[in-house]
């Protein structure tokens, strides 16, 4: 499967395409708006181009890898395989859209150079997490992700932001410490941390099994913080105090997905799905994921603040991925991994719309959303599409992943998963439909809390084009991902390629 | 003959115990002035001990620097302290030993623990010293072997100025550092000048030439008999202290770069000579055997000047807070 020698610099270019603009932007004085926008967009486009190139390459079996000597016996390795490319594709597309959205959103607000600098660094670390070839590289970029997202959480500079930052750090830093402890313990047993298709632990003798279970618990705890598994999800709702583009890209896509992606990597490429099942750790993981799904949806019901409701919905939705990974079987894997993309598309749409509502009409609470559909039709249309996707209504992408999850559960005999899926879909409906009903079928109040006093008069237009376009695009993407699921370029096809490589390795 | 051995034993025992007793009284006497005077007596007794261990070079150094100069510095500092803190530190207010700040009960316990710990370590060190192999040549054989090619016949000066001259270079730098450190603290409030006593003036006027002669003699004789740069330097320094005590102050212009040159001449000579030998002999401070004696004498004389200037300036700074004008206004 090695194919002819692909060139090694591509993975590096993907990381650099986000890193270089970021570093340059840090140095830019505040008023250089045009230059900053140009830099951001060129970086985003470059990343998409390189990702596309590698997608085509990996599809044809090329191998892209670059190794740098880092520690005695360990290298920093960036390797683009099918699973990592899925995540990079998602993050590069959404990075472009979020950059456009952020430019519109932060019009005229202070410290934008600092914001976009850390924004690009965050995408750099996300692509690093995606392309890490071994667990040490993963750990490096995983911790880097924490460090570069903290300034974005405390960007506003208010006392509330600082306290939210402290909570965010307490969770993520201690999660990182647990992960480090697990990785170092694993390294002392196995002597290597390379990701390999059928894992590296299957040939260890049984004396190590209790240690391996403990290590699994540590790794999952470390990754669970970012994947917002139940006991460790506390930071996600608090981090909503950050500006909308931050909560959109980071807390719905980059950070949360890094955790779920990490769990997938550990289960598939370190333990190997069969060895993990044999070890008996996939059962508890699936149970934990299920609990998180239900708990997240229940808490979302009670949230009046729109962004906190979406945050709890994220907590529950991300656990679909963990559930898919934890259920042993190709179909469940497909369902879980493809949900990584689908949830990303849908959730970012919802957060964009929430941002629009807050920015344009000053709406933060659900009860203030009466009749907002008439005032901002396109935004609410996108919101509705996203909501339907979340609930699992057929044409939108969410349905596909839930469908495959159900099939996978049946295929591997985990029947208890079906009621969980159905229950969570009902709960999703329970906390999304009232919002839609209030937006479309209630008459608007006489005056909105605050209208955006943009210098350029909005007049009849809904909001700035930069705020409107991204949610619509992501909503359409979510729709097409569902409708054209079987087309060769759709995420589902690509995930089937991943599952096929993960399960039927030579 | 065993009578003589017994007498020597008795003398050494008395001297050893005397040292310990004086040290104990000096450290724990109720009055600071008494403590310093006892410390000076302790220094002189130490000089006697060095003579008994026939380390006459060290005896000279101890008497001149250890007892003499350190004593003068301590007395000058105490005088400054009293005028500064006005409360009579040496009077009745200072009870024998300040108990450490924890409550008396705690202090007794911690003091007991401390004494226990110290006595245990004393026993340990005593046993270690006692169990040392009875015969060890040390380096005296090597020194004797290379003495003739070292340019001097006094082994101690040979070691100080030739075999381990690198140590002496670093030591000159330590002296320079002391002066620089004291200068950087030179914000001490100046001491009111006391009227000079006529008798002291005549004493110092008479003694100065004798001291300079003795210092030169010590420097010269250092090549083959106990003496050398440090002893000569300290005697010369003592002359400076005596002059300072009798109210003499160097002219202001002299206190500028000439003083700085005097202070750094010792270390500077070492460095220049070192680099010179590095170029010629490929080894730092490796004097060619022929000129070794002459080079050592040059180094020693410059070192003497440097040591004397350093000790005198240290005394001046401690005793009367002299200000080192650096041409820039004093930031205070």
């Amino acid at each position, binding site marked *: 499967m090695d194919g002819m020698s692909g060139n090694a610099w591509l993975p590096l270019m993907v990381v650099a395409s986000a890193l270089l603009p970021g570093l340059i932007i840090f140095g830019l004085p505040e008023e250089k708006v045009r230059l900053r926008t140009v830099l951001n967009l060129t970086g985003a486009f470059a990343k998409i181009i390189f990702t596309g190139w590698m997608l085509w390459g990996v599809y044809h079996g090329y191998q892209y890898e670059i190794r740098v000597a880092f520690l005695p016996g360990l290298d920093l390795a960036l390797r683009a395989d099918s699973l990592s490319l899925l995540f990079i594709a998602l993050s590069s597309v959404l990075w472009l859209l979020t950059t456009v959205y952020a430019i519109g959103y932060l019009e005229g607000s202070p410290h934008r150079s600092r914001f976009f600098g850390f924004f690009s660094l965050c995408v750099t670390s996300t692509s690093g997490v995606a392309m890490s070839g071994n667990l040490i590289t993963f750990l490096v970029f995983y911790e880097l992700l924490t460090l570069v997202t903290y300034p974005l959480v405390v960007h506003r500079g208010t006392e509330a932001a600082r306290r939210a930052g402290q909570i965010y750090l307490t969770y993520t830093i201690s999660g990182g410490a647990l992960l480090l402890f697990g990785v170092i313990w694993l390294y002392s047993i196995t002597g290597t941390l390379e990701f390999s298709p059928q894992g590296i632990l299957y040939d260890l003798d049984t004396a190590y099994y209790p240690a391996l279970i403990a290590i699994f618990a540590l790794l999952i705890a470390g990754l669970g913080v970012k994947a917002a598994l139940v006991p460790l999800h506390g930071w996600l709702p608090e981090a909503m105090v950050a500006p909308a583009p931050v909560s959109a890209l980071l807390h719905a896509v980059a950070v949360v997905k890094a955790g779920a992606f990490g769990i997938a990597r550990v289960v598939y490429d370190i333990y190997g799905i069969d060895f993990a099942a044999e070890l008996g750790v996939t059962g508890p993981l699936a149970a934990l994921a299920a609990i998180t799904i239900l708990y997240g949806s229940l808490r979302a019901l009670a949230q009046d603040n729109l962004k906190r409701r979406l945050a709890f919905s994220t907590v529950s939705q991300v656990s679909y991925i963990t559930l898919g990974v934890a259920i042993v079987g190709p179909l469940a894997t497909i369902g879980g991994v493809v949900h990584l993309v689908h949830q990303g598309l849908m959730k970012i749409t919802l957060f964009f719309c929430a941002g629009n509502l807050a920015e344009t009409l000053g709406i933060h609470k659900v009860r203030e959303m009466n009749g907002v559909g008439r005032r901002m039709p396109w935004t609410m249309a996108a919101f509705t599409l996203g909501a339907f996707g979340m609930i699992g209504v057929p044409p939108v992408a969410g349905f596909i992943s839930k469908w495959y999850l159900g099939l996978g559960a049946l295929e591997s005999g985990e029947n208890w998963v079906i009621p969980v899926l159905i229950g969570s879909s009902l709960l999703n409906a329970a906390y999304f439909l009232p919002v839609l009903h209030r937006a479309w079928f209630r008459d608007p109040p006489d005056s909105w809390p605050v209208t955006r006093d943009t210098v350029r008069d909005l007049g009849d237009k809904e909001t700035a084009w930069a705020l409107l376009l991204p949610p619509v695009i992501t909503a359409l993407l979510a729709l097409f991902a569902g409708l054209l699921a079987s087309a060769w370029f759709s995420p589902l096809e690509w995930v089937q390629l991943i599952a096929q490589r993960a399960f039927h390795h030579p | 003959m065993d009578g003589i051995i017994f007498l020597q034993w008795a003398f*050494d025992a008395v001297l*050893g*115990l005397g*040292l*310990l007793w004086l*040290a*104990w009284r000096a*450290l724990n006497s109720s009055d*600071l002035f008494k403590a310093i005077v006892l*410390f000076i007596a*302790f220094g002189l007794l130490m000089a006697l*001990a*060095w003579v*008994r*261990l*026939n*380390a006459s*070079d*060290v005896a000279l*150094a101890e008497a001149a*620097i*250890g007892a003499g100069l*350190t004593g003068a*510095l*301590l007395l000058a*500092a105490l005088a400054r*302290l009293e005028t*500064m*803190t006005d409360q009579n530190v040496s009077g009745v207010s*200072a009870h024998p*030993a*300040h108990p450490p*700040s924890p409550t008396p009960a705690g202090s007794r316990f911690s003091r007991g623990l*401390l004494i226990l710990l110290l006595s245990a370590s*004393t026993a340990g060190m*005593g046993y270690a*010293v006692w169990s*040392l192999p*009875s015969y*060890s040549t040390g*380096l*005296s054989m090597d*020194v*004797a072997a290379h003495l003739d090619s070292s340019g001097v016949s006094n*082994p*101690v000066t*040979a070691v*100080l100025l030739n075999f*381990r001259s690198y140590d*002496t270079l670093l*030591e000159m730098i*330590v*002296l320079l*550092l*002391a002066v620089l450190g*004291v200068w950087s603290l030179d914000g*001490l*409030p100046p001491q009111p000048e006391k009227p000079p006593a006529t008798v002291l003036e005549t004493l110092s006027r008479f003694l100065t030439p004798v001291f300079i002669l003795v210092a030169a003699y010590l420097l010269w004789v250092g090549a083959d008999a106990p003496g050398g740069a440090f002893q000569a330097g300290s005697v010369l320094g003592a002359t400076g202290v005596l002059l300072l005590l009798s109210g003499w102050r160097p002219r202001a212009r002299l206190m500028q770069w000439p003083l700085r040159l005097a202070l750094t001449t010792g270390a500077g000579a070492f460095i220049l000579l070192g680099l010179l030998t590095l170029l010629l002999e490929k080894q730092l401070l490796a004097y060619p055997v022929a000129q070794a004696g002459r080079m050592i004498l040059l180094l020693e004389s410059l070192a003497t000047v440097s*040591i004397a200037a350093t000790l005198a300036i*240290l005394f001046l700074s401690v005793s009367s807070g002299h200000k080192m004008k650096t041409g820039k206004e004093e930031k205070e």
Partner: protein
Amino acid sequence: MTNAFLYAFAGIGLFVLGLHALVVHAHVLRKILAVNVMGSGVFLVLVALARRSGEATSDPVPHAMVITGIVVAVSATALALALMLKLAGKSGEAVLPGKHND
């Protein structure tokens, strides 16, 4: 000639006496005295042990070391005294500020 050991033990005694005084006393001048006494103690041990095997010519290297040590001690004492005076000048008393723990 074992009377060299006598001086060695006296040296150790001085070292320990000085250490005790350094820890116990609060007044800085006493601490400086204690450090000097400890220094003398260590030098005494150094030269005394060189004489323990009783041969005629004494080993010059310890003597050179002690002379170096004495000069270092006097420079350290001078700096300590200047520091103490500056401290007393500023704080009115020659005791270490803050809680006195050694």
